[in-house]
C-alpha cells in the first residue's frame, strides 16, 4: 500500500465518517473518477522529459512554441457572420477596431449546404446563422476595406470549402495580393460533419477526396494557409464527452493523413499546415488535460507512426472555442461567467487561438455589444490575470498530469476500436460515432434532469430573470442576395461560366485535383450553387441512416 492509499484508507475514511462527502458526482464529464487528492504516487514511473518535454519541443505537451504567450498572445479570433456581406463586413471592421487580431467567418446554412441564396430550400434561412455567400461578388463585399495580406481569415466552411476558398483567393488576387503571402484557415473537415454537425453534401469517399485536393494544392500555392482545421468542437457540441471529442478528432486527423499518403503526397509537405479546433467546456481540468494530451498524441503519431521528419509536422496547433452547448437561455447573463472560466481553461491549456462565445447565443446570434463583451473577456485574461506570463503553468500537477495520461490512454483505446471497424469512413457507415455520442449525450441529460449534475439557473438556483436584447437579422437580406445573384448571372460571360463548370465536372470525373477548376469557376463568376450542383451530378448526395 503506498502512502496515498494508506491516507485514503485511514485519514480520509475517518474524516468522511465525521463529515460525509457532499452529494456530488466526483467524476469528470467524461466519467473519469476524481480522487480526493493526487500525489506523486499517481505518477509512478512518470518521465517528465519523455511525457512533457519543454515548450516548443517534442512531444509538445507544454505547447508548440518555446516562448508561448510571452512573445505572442493567442490570436483573439471571434467567429462572426450575420445577414448580408455588407452587415458582416461592418461587424468585422468593428471587431478589428476593438483589438481583435484575426477574422473568423460564420456562413449561413444555405452556403454551408451549397445552395445559392435564391434556391427554394434557402427561403427563410438566408443570413440567419451566418453570412450568405453565393458568389465572388458577395466575397468582394465581405472583405471590402480589409487587407488580406495583413489580416488572417478563418472560414468555417466544409462541404463547399474548395469553392469558398477559391472565391476568397480570387478576391484577394484581384486586389493585388500574392497567394504566397496570404494566411488563414478553412475548416474543411468533412469527417466531423458525418460524425456530428451533419452539413455534408456528397458521400464520404468523394468528400474526403475533395479535402485531400487541398492538402496537395494548398502547400504548393498558398503555403501559409491552414487548409484544414480538424474539429472536435462540433463533436462535443453534438453531445460527446471530452474523451470522445479528443479521440474522434485525432482519428479524423490520422485518417486524412493516411488518405493523403495513399495519394502519394509527402507528409512533411502537408502536415505542418494541418490545424485543429477544440471545445473548451465546463470541466476545467479535464479540458486542460484534453488539449495537453491531444498535442502529445498527435506528435507521437506523426513522428513515430507516420515517420514525419520536420518538427513542424509533429506540432498540433489549435484553435479553441468556448462551449456553445453549455450556454443556457435561463439567466443568460450567467453565461458571461461560464465563458470566462472556459476561456481561462483554453489559455492554461496553451491554445494558439481563441473564440469566446457571447452570453446571448442560446437565444440568437450575438449582438454587437455581447460579441464585444466576449472579446473583452479574452483581453481581461490576457492583460490582467498574469496567466500568460509562463508556459503551461499546470504542468507537474499530480492531478493534471494523471488526467492527461488517462485521457491519452482512453483515446488510444478508441483508436483501436475505430481501426477494428475498418477506419473512420467504415465506422461512419456503421453508425459507430452516432451511437457513441448519442448514448453519452442522453446519459448526461438524464443526470441533469435528475439533479445529479447541477446547472446553475436551470436545475438549481433558479429565479426569474430579465430578457436580454437579441440580434435581429435584416429581413431584406434575401432580397439583397437575390438581386446581387441576378446581376452576377446577367453580367458575366455565359460561355466562360459554362466552360468553367464543365471543367469542374470533368476534373471530378477524371479524379484529378479539383482546385484549379474551382479557381477557374470563381474567376468566371460561377455561383456556389452552380458549382455544388455540378459536383452533385458527378458524386451523388449523401443521406444518413436515421438512428436514435
Amino acid at each position: 500500500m503506498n502512502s496515498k492509499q494508506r491516507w485514503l484508507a485511514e485519514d480520509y475514511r475517518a474524516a468522511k465518517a465525521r463529515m460525509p462527502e457532499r452529494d456530488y458526482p466526483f467524476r469528470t464529464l467524461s466519467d473519469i473518477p476524481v480522487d480526493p487528492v493526487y500525489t506523486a504516487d499517481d505518477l509512478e514511473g512518470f518521465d517528465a522529459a519523455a511525457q512533457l518535454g519543454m515548450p516548443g519541443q517534442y512531444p509538445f505537451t507544454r505547447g508548440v512554441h518555446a516562448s508561448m504567450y510571452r512573445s505572442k498572445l493567442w490570436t483573439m479570433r471571434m467567429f462572426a457572420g450575420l445577414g448580408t456581406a455588407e452587415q458582416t463586413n461592418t461587424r468585422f471592421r468593428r471587431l478589428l477596431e476593438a483589438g481583435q487580431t484575426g477574422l473568423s467567418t460564420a456562413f449561413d446554412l444555405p452556403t454551408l449546404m451549397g445552395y445559392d441564396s435564391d434556391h427554394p430550400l434557402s427561403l427563410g434561412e438566408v443570413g440567419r446563422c451566418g453570412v450568405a455567400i453565393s458568389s465572388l461578388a458577395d466575397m468582394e463585399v465581405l472583405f471590402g476595406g480589409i487587407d488580406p495580406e495583413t489580416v488572417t481569415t478563418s472560414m468555417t466552411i466544409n462541404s463547399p470549402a474548395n469553392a469558398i476558398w477559391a472565391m476568397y483567393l480570387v478576391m484577394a488576387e484581384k486586389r493585388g495580393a500574392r497567394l504566397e503571402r496570404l494566411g488563414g484557415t478553412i475548416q474543411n473537415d468533412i469527417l466531423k460533419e458525418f460524425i456530428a454537425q451533419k452539413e455534408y453534401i456528397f458521400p464520404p469517399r468523394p468528400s474526403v477526396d475533395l479535402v485531400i485536393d487541398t492538402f496537395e494544392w494548398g502547400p504548393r500555392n498558398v503555403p501559409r494557409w491552414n487548409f484544414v482545421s480538424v474539429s472536435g468542437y462540433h463533436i462535443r457540441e453534438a453531445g460527446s464527452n471530452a474523451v470522445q471529442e479528443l479521440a474522434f478528432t485525432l482519428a479524423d486527423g490520422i485518417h486524412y493523413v493516411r488518405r493523403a499518403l495513399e495519394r502519394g503526397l509527402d507528409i512533411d509537405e502537408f502536415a505542418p499546415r494541418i490545424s485543429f479546433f477544440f471545445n473548451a467546456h465546463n470541466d476545467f481540468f479535464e479540458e486542460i488535460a484534453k488539449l495537453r494530451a491531444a498535442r502529445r498524441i498527435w506528435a507521437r503519431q506523426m513522428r513515430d507512426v507516420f515517420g514525419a521528419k520536420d518538427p513542424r509536422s509533429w506540432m498540433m496547433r489549435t484553435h479553441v472555442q468556448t462551449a456553445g452547448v453549455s450556454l443556457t437561455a435561463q439567466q443568460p447573463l450567467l453565461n458571461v461567467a461560464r465563458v470566462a472560466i472556459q476561456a481561462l481553461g483554453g489559455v492554461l491549456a496553451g491554445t494558439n487561438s481563441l473564440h469566446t462565445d457571447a452570453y446571448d447565443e442560446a437565444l440568437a446570434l450575438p449582438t454587437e455589444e455581447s460579441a464585444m463583451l466576449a472579446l473583452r473577456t479574452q483581453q481581461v485574461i490576457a492583460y490582467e490575470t498574469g496567466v500568460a506570463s509562463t508556459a503551461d503553468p499546470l504542468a507537474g500537477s499530480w492531478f493534471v498530469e494523471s488526467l492527461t495520461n488517462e485521457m491519452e490512454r482512453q483515446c488510444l483505446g478508441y483508436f483501436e476500436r475505430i481501426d477494428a471497424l475498418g477506419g473512420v469512413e467504415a465506422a461512419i457507415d456503421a453508425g459507430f460515432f452516432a451511437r457513441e455520442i448519442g448514448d453519452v449525450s442522453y446519459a448526461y441529460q438524464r443526470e441533469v434532469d435528475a439533479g445529479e449534475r447541477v446547472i446553475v439557473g436551470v436545475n438549481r438556483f433558479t429565479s426569474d430573470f430579465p430578457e436580454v436584447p437579441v440580434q435581429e437579422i435584416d429581413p431584406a437580406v434575401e432580397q439583397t442576395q437575390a438581386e446581387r445573384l441576378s446581376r452576377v448571372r446577367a453580367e458575366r460571360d455565359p460561355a466562360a461560366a459554362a466552360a468553367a463548370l464543365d471543367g469542374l465536372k470533368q476534373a471530378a470525373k477524371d479524379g484529378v485535383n479539383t482546385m484549379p477548376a474551382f479557381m477557374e469557376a470563381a474567376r468566371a463568376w460561377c455561383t456556389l450553387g452552380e458549382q455544388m450542383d455540378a459536383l452533385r451530378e458527378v458524386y451523388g448526395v449523401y443521406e444518413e441512416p436515421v438512428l436514435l
Partner: protein
Amino acid sequence: MSGSGQPLRILIAKPGLDGHDRGAKVIARGLRDAGMEVIYSGLRQTAPMIVNAAIQEDVQAVGLSVLSGAHMRYFHEVLHGLRERGAADILLFGGGIVPDEDARTLQEQGVGRIFTPGASMDEVVAYIRDSVADRP
C-alpha cells in the same frame, strides 16, 4: 397514457437545412423512455414532408427542432399545413435557439410551447401529457 389508454404518439422533426440534432435526439429518446411512441424524422425535412408524416403516423403532437434561426418559416408552414389538411388537433410545439419574442408570436398564432437550451426532459414530458390531454 392518453384517454384511450394507448401510448401517446409523437413526431420529432428536423425541418430545413439545420444539422444540429443533439437536442432532437435527446428529446426523442426521453419521450420514448417516458412511455410514448416516438417517430424521429431524421434531418432536412420540408414542411409538407413533416405534415404528411404527422398525419400518416397518426400522432397527437409534432415537435420541431430548429437551431438555425429559420424557425418562423418552418413553424408557420407546418402549422398551416396541419390546418389545411384538417389536422389542427395535432399539437405543434418545438425547441431550439428561438428568441422569446418570436416564441410569443408563434404561440399567439397557435403554436404550443417552445423549449430553449437548458429545458429539462421532465418539463417537456409533463407539458406534452398535459397539453394533449386538454385537446379535443
